[in-house]
């Protein structure tokens, strides 16, 4: 190890940014779970809402991808 304090900060920051992936996972799970419980309650309406489901998942996941991007930027680009 070179003992560079800046590197230390980078790696710690990247690791912290990785928490965002977990948060996004919670969000996506929430969307899918709520969709499923709604769909089981009213299966006839579920088929028309799959597009909405995917849009919701995409929005939730985009933020997780942002945190992944932050981690990558800290690791490789800063």
């Amino acid at each position, binding site marked *: 190890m070179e003992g560079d304090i800046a590197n230390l900060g980078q790696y710690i920051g990247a690791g912290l940014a990785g928490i965002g992936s977990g948060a996004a996972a919670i969000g996506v799970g929430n969307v899918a779970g709520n969709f499923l419980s709604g769909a089981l309650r009213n299966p006839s309406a579920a088929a028309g809402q799959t597009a909405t489901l995917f849009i919701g998942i995409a929005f939730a996941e985009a933020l997780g991808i942002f945190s992944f991007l932050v981690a*990558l*930027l800290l*690791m*490789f*680009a800063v």
Partner: protein
Amino acid sequence: MATETHGAESASGMPQLDPSTYSNQIFWLVLALVAIYLLLSRVALPRIGAVLAERQGAITNDIAAAEELKLKAAEAEKAYDKALADARAEAAEITAETKASMQAELDAALAKADAEIAEQQKESAARIGEIRDSATANVEAVAKDTAEALVAHLGGQADSGQIAGVVSSKMGGR
């Protein structure tokens, strides 16, 4: 520093952030998108749309034809049912007619037989009557003769007329 092993390849750590390749990537991307768009809008999409429309038309036509055939089949069935009912009615009529005619013949035959029997009965009765009458006459004659003989034997003067009257009255009073 030991960076020369792969330093030349990953020049900026994250290759996506190397702006020197942007113009190249964007140029080829736009070229690829235009190529795909031209392929799709000029050739592929009209063709697939036409095929789908044609199939839809074919399916619609087939369904219409099937509907028509179904109608025809229903009509044919109706006609068949009607023919069957007609035939059945005719058969029933014929049966009834035959039965009626047979009944009539039978009745006629029965009547004839009855008439014959009645005539024969009448004849028989007449003959029996004759036989009885003749038998009665015979008995009367025999009774007269017997009475005359008896009277003569007893020594009386037999008045044949009186005897005949008595015998007749006895016989008739019977």
